[in-house]
């Protein structure tokens, strides 16, 4: 008996809602990470930061299970193979962002680095730009599914935030290494700054990849 590879409506609806939920999870994790970082910079590792860590970990775990479920359905039951590969690659990149946020915030709770008080405002600005770059990537991803041409309108915003992150990172590092702290503390702080910088960089790379996926989707 010939088997029709036409996915039933139910599968399409299910995958659509799973992708939506995955993007929501990434977006909420970004918000939790941003709030957690600001709380840590202001009050140190307190209950708020601990709560945010739990939230981020929960989003990360949900994101993992959603990504594998979406991947399985996309490959086995529906969608053009080329597009499936692009979507899975996109979801994988976003999942890496989730992993990075979770990993970094967990480390923050363990190591509790002491950022200089005079750089607090710059640190908050730095974190906010990194989070904006990631958030714009999520927005671009949502648009990719409905209007691939619209992705181009957002990639420059991601790039802008990433550049701001780089600029602030250099300024912060110069300030840290010019200060009187011991070298090991300076290196410790540098590691944390670079982790946040890496998130913005990955968001930018994901945005670039998204722009290519969008061009490939042109009719």
């Amino acid at each position, binding site marked *: 008996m010939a088997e029709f590879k036409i996915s039933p409506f139910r599968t399409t609806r299910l995958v659509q809602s799973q992708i939506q939920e995955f993007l929501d999870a990434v977006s909420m994790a970004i918000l939790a990470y941003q709030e957690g970082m600001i709380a840590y910079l202001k009050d140190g590792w307190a209950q708020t930061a601990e709560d945010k860590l739990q939230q981020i970990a929960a989003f990360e775990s949900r994101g993992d299970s959603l990504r594998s479920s979406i991947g399985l359905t996309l490959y086995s039951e529906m969608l*053009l193979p080329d597009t499936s590969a692009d979507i899975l690659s996109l979801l994988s990149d976003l999942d890496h962002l989730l992993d990075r946020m979770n990993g970094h915030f967990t480390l923050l709770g363990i190591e509790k680095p002491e950022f200089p008080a005079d750089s607090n405002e710059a640190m908050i600005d730095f974190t906010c730009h990194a989070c904006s770059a990631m958030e714009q990537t999520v927005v671009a991803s949502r648009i990719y599914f409905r209007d691939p041409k619209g992705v181009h309108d957002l990639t420059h915003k991601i790039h802008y935030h990433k550049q701001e992150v780089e600029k602030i990172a250099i300024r912060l590092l110069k300030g840290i290494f010019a200060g009187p702290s011991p070298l090991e503390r300076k290196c410790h702080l540098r590691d944390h700054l670079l982790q946040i910088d890496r998130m913005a960089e990955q968001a930018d790379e994901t945005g670039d990849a998204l722009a290519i996926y969008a061009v490939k989707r042109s009719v």
Partner: protein
Amino acid sequence: MIELSFFIFLSSGLFLGWSLGANDAANIFGTAVTSRMLRFRTAAILCAVFVVLGAVISGAGASDGLGKLGAVNALPGSFTVALSAALTVYTMTKWGLPVSTTQAVVGGIVGWNVFSDSPTDLASLTQIAGTWVASPILGALFAWLIYLGLTALIERIKPHMLWLDHWTRVGLVLAGVFGAYSLGANNIGNVMGVFLASSPLQDIQVGELFSLSAPQRLFLWGGLAIAVGVFFSLPVMATVGKGIVPIGPLGGWVVVVSQSLVLFIFSSSSLQKFVTDLGLPPIPLVPVSSSQAVVGAVCGIALARGIKGLRQIRWWEVAKIAVGWVSTPISAALICFVMLFIVQNVFEQQVFVLSSTSHAKTKP
């Protein structure tokens, strides 16, 4: 009881049908299969079933149109015309020259007309040659319109990518089914048209269920030959859409629909009646080349994409078609003439029956 000799003579037509199925099924389900939206086996089964249905139900129109050019009235003659068309297609394909089964068959019939001293209806010939030019142009026009309409619709409603792909998949299956039906209805004339006048088949009644007229029985055989050929079309499918301009699955759907519409227009008696009822000139019902309609449709998509699309067209591939309009029928006519001479004088077969319009050149 049908004599075995009938099937021996019919074999060249069946071979032509097999080759048509092996080549032209790719135009219909090629995009769906190469983009892995549909499995080859599923595509082949759907294509085979609907080709046979199209041939049996709606095959009469285009076959009659071809018959006006010349009614090959002896079975060995029909065999020779179909064989020479098949040989022309085979040889020109082997040499990498553009070829269409339709044009080869028309050339073969003209060759038979010349050999048997039967007059060639120039009005029919002009009409048929006109459809060769019209079919790629119509294919381009349909594709251009459908593509622009579709892109505007997608821009407007912005469907979710998953749903767009879902409907593309469904659309490719439906368009493929329509395409297979149209191919059967239109191109059965190429395969069995030359046997119509000489076929010994009679009308039959199958129980209380349905009856098959003599031409329908002939078309059933031809349709089955095409259907068998479809199962050999996988290698050709792999090359679809790569010759002229790159197209995606949605573009592939536009091409299949446009090509199917062209084939349908030139084979639907109901549509012809509707057009004449409106007081418009009748659409000629003749077999047309599905491959050339596809090329036209692909160019139509490129045109709709603007300057960028125009630059992507490999114009030499398009120019080859125009070359084929002349080279294919002339080659087929020459081959047919020579083969008729051999079949008549070496194998001593009667390749035509003298009629009031032909003159003696045979040993009836």
